[in-house]
């Protein structure tokens, strides 16, 4: 009599989902890995090399060194989000999500698999952008633990956001609305290109409501040792949001929102 272990099945299923996700974004590398490399190189050339020297120091460092951490973080969060949102919605659209639904895969395994796929793409793009930045500036790491943990937590958080977006989306337009109207503005206003100290007090207070500001600044702290916000507050906020979004995603998955009739 054949016996099957629930946890063993979930472990193999998780590996399968992650491998499938990595296979997907590496197969279409021209759409997933190449564009951020080109865009970020342009940022480095235009803002760092051409405009940067005219700006001078920012936050106590030269402008190129100041923007590199922000641009790496921007790459990680947009790619983690985009990977999960587009992959999950595409699977819904083609109905291949049913392959998992007819199998003994726990909703938590599905969620974790997609999130890890998003983290894999976010971190891959982050590494590519970091390597490119080394051509333009010398990066030294102030606190490796902070760098690694903030990158992973940011990628996890935005992968969860992408998953929720993909789960609720009914058309391809729906998965571009949040990145265009929410993530991009928050990223640009999140201290990627300027120090918060440049802003009047009212706008500084308003900026403190922007979660991306905390990620960018904490990552910058890990690289340069300078930040506008507390690293501990950043970690606490991110863990809270990760918990909330994970819980919401699991409840929606169990209900089969957008998937089960």
């Amino acid at each position, binding site marked *: *009599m*054949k*016996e*099957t*272990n*629930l*946890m*063993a*099945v*979930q472990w*193999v*299923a998780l*590996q*399968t*989902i992650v*491998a*499938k996700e990595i*296979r*997907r974004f590496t*197969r279409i590398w021209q759409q997933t890995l190449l564009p951020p490399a080109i865009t970020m190189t342009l940022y480095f050339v235009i803002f760092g090399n051409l405009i940067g020297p005219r700006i001078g120091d920012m936050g106590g460092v030269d402008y190129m060194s100041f923007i590199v951490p922000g641009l790496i973080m921007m790459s990680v969060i947009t790619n983690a989000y985009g990977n999960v949102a587009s992959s999950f919605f*595409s*699977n819904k659209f*083609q*109905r*291949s999500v*049913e*392959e*998992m*639904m*007819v*199998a*003994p*895969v726990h909703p938590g395994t599905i969620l974790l698999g997609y999130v890890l796929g998003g983290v894999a793409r976010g971190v891959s793009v982050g590494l590519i952008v970091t390597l490119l930045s080394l051509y333009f500036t010398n990066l030294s790491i102030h606190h490796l633990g902070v760098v690694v943990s903030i990158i992973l937590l940011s990628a996890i958080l935005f992968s969860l956001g992408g998953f929720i977006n993909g789960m609720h989306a009914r058309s391809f337009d729906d998965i571009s609305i949040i990145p265009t109207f929410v993530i991009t503005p928050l990223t640009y206003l999140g201290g990627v290109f300027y120090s918060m100290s440049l802003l009047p007090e009212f706008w500084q207070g308003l900026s403190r409501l922007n979660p991306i500001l905390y990620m960018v600044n904490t990552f910058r702290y890990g690289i340069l040792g300078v930040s506008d916000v507390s690293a501990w507050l950043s970690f606490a906020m991110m863990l809270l949001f990760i918990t909330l979004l994970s819980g919401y995603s699991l409840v929606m998955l169990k209900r*089969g929102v957008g998937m*089960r*009739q």
Partner: protein
Amino acid sequence: MQIQMETPMLPALAVHDLSKVYGNGFQALKGVSFEVQQGDFFALLGPNGAGKSTTLGILSGLVQKSTGSASVMGFDVNDQAFGARLNLGVVPQEFNFNQFEKVLDIVVTQAGYFGMTRDQALPEAERLLKSLDLWEKRDQPSRMLSGGMKRRLMIARALVHGPKVLILDEPTAGVDIELRRSMWEFLRELNAAGTTIILTTHYLEEAEQLCRNIAIINKGEIVQLTSVRQLLAQMTSETFVFDLQGNADKAPELEGYHAQLVSPDCLEITVERGQSINDVFTRLTGAGVMVRSMRPKANRLEELFVSLVRGANA
């Protein structure tokens, strides 16, 4: 948690008083009940919108039931979903694989969802793809396959984890006759090897050729649940088409039979239960009508199906 996969005394499928009301208020199922025994080859027939796919959707976990219960090999599809799904393979009506994935990857990935590692899945995937004539296409993206190949890919994908029960929702829709016959042979062999098979089909000949038991569903209710043999025994009459040697001016007078000349060289005769086809030949010969060939007007099950559905709609 350990799940035992074989429960030989239980029915392969059990559906009790199942109902489904969709969000738009449409009631697709109205208390459907039936059982499928292990090893059976079972047909679920019904016109479009009768509730076939909804029933199969509930069994496979793609549709949420409203009330009632459904189980696979004794495992409730909701409360014991893990056990139910391990035992079930599903071939849906519409293509539902990633069009950009390669054929072999689709099958091996599905095995992974059932807990089979790539090394465990590859030999089984190779065996199935070879049996279904798809091995040469293993490295092609699935969108490059023909319609028939895509249907066979879905069968390979559904079988890769070795399910005890296989559900096929119109597996041969849009498939040419030769391919359909080879798929029938594949399914017969699979059933003979012990897999319980449940299929829905629009080709009633398919149900008659393959299935031992049958449920006819109409407007969300079971109108007939019996064996194919018993169902055919319910036939009270059957119409035959006679191709004539030369032309006839009018239908010959055959007392006790309903005969109609549909063209100068083609005659339709309805034979009631208790009447003999030999008697028809004798009388035709006596009337000077020579017969070149003869065939049933329609598939026998088709005639019964139409009469049952009409009866239920009346």
